[in-house]
C-alpha cells in the first residue's frame, strides 16, 4: 500500500481533483485540504449544509475510487 502523502498518491489525487465538477472541487479543497468550517464553506458557495455535505460525500467517494489502487493493501480493488 502506498503512503497517502507519497508522490504517486499526490499525482493521482491532483488529476482526480482536476476532473471533479467545479462545485465539488471547491467544497472538498476547502473542507479537507484547507480544513475550513462547514458553515463558512456552505455560505460562501451558496449551498445548504445538507447539500454541502452531500457534495463532500460524493467528492470523497470519487477521489477514493481513483485512489483505491494506491490505498488497497495487496491487489487492485
Amino acid at each position, binding site marked *: 500500500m502506498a503512503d*497517502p*502523502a507519497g508522490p504517486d*498518491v*499526490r*499525482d493521482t*489525487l*491532483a*488529476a482526480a*481533483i*482536476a*476532473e*471533479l*465538477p*467545479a*462545485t*465539488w*472541487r*471547491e467544497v*472538498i*479543497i*476547502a473542507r*479537507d*485540504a*484547507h*480544513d475550513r468550517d*462547514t458553515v463558512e464553506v456552505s455560505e*460562501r*458557495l*451558496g*449551498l445548504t449544509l445538507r*447539500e*454541502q*455535505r*452531500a*457534495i*463532500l*460525500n*460524493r467528492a*470523497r*467517494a*470519487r*477521489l*477514493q475510487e*481513483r*485512489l*483505491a489502487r494506491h*490505498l*488497497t493493501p495487496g491487489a487492485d480493488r
Partner: protein
Amino acid sequence: MSTAVAASAAVPRTLARRLVPLQVAVGLQGFILWVPVEKLFMTQIGFTPRSVGIMAAAYAAVVPLLEMPSGILADRWSRNQIMVCSSVALLASSLLGGLSTNVPTYIAAAMILGVYFALNSGTIDSIVYDVVLEETGSSDQYEVWIGRVRMVESGAFVASALVGGALAGWTSARLTYFASLPLVAIAVAAFLRFDEPRLHRAAEPVALRRHVALTYRTMIREPGVRQVMLLAALVGLLSQAVFEFGPLWLVALAAPAALFGPYWAALVSTLGAGGYLTSKLNLDRRAALSLLALAAPAAALALTQTRALAAVIAAQVVLALSLAIISIRAGKLLHDGVPSNLRAGVSSGVGTLSWMLFLPFSLVFGWFARAHGVQRAGWFLTATALLIALLLIASVLRRHPRPVAASAAQPDEFACKELVELVTDYLDGVLPPELKDTFQTHLASCDGCAEYVRQIGLTIRALKEAGLHLAPRPQASASRDPDRPDR
C-alpha cells in the same frame, strides 16, 4: 506533474442560474413554427397519402437507428455539443423543408429531422440530472427541474402552434419554415453558453468498444435497470399511442371538427402540466404514487366503456397527464441506477426500446380497431397501462436496500449503499443517535464497508497532506478555471 490545482471562479453558483441557458435553448428548440401547418404545406408541394406514409417510414427508420449511437457519443464526447448538433440538424431540416418544392426533398428534410430527434433523445434529461447532482450533491431535485424544463418545452409547443398557424394565415405556410430559423440559431448560442456538467467525463476513459459493451450490459444485465427501462419504454409507447390513436375516438363518436383544436391543445398541454404537477407532488409518498399508478389504467379502462364525448376527452387527458408524470418518475429511477458516464446512452436506449415496441403495437392496434372498433381496441391501452402500474409499484417496493459491496443482506437491514451515503454525515458527527448506532453496528460486521471507511480516511489524509499545494480559492478577483467554458 504539479499538485497545484486551481479552484474555480469565485462566483457562488446556484442550480437555478446555471440551468437558465438550457431552458432558453430548449424553449427555442420547441418553438418550431411550421409544425401546425406542416400537413398543409406538404399537400401544397404534392404529397399524397401514400407519400406521407413513405415519409413517416423513412423518418421512423432514422430515429431508432441513431438514438443509441448518439447517446453513447454524448457520454463520450460532450452532451452540450450533441445538443448543438441537434439544433443544427433542426436548422438544416427547417431550411431544406422550406426550400422544398417536391416530395423527395421534403422526405430528405424529414430524415434530417429524425437526426434532430435522435440526438435530442435522452440527452436533455441526462444533462439536467447531472447538473442537479453537481450543484446539490443529490438527485432529489431532479424531478422538480426536469418538470420545469418540460413546462418550458410544452409552453413553446403550444405557443408555436398558435403563432405558426397565424403566421401561415397572414403569409404562407412556406414562410413559417424560414421564420423558425433565427430562433433555432439563438438556441445554438444558448447551448454554447451553457455550463455543461462534467460528471460523465470524470471517470477514467475507456475504449469505445468497452464503453458500448458496458452500456448494453448495464441495460440488459442489471435487473433494477432492466425493469425501470421497461417501465420508461412502456410509458413512452403508451403516450405515443394516446397521441397517435386518441383522435380516432373522437372520429368514431362523430365529434364536431371545431372540437379537435381544443382537444389537441389539452392533450399537448399535459406534457407541461405533468412537469408542473411533478414539481409540486412528492412522489416519494406512497399514496401519491399509488394514486398515479391507479389513474392510468382507470382512465384507459374508461375509454373502453364510455360513449360520451366529454368523458372520452377527459379520460384521454387524465391518461396523458398521468403518463407525463410517470415518465419523469421513471427517468429519475433510471438515472439513479446508472453511472454518469453511461447515462445518455442508457437513456437513449429507452427511446429505442419504445420505438421498437410501438411498431408492432400500432400495427396490431390498427388492425384490431378496424375489425372491432376503436373502443374495444382501448383494451390494448388498458393492458399496457396496467403493466405500467405494476412496474411502477414494483419500483417502489424494490427502491430500498440494494447492497453494493457485500452481496449478503446484513442482519441490521442497513445496506452498504446507505452506509456509503452516510459516511460524511458520520464523520461530521451529524448523524442522529439511532442512525449512528446502526452505522457502527454495520461497520463492525461488514469488512467491505470497514475498508471503505478506512480508505475515505486515507483520502482525507492525503488531501490534508496535499493541502499546501492545492491552490486556495481566489477571492473577489476571480481567476478563471481553464476547463470551464465562459459563461
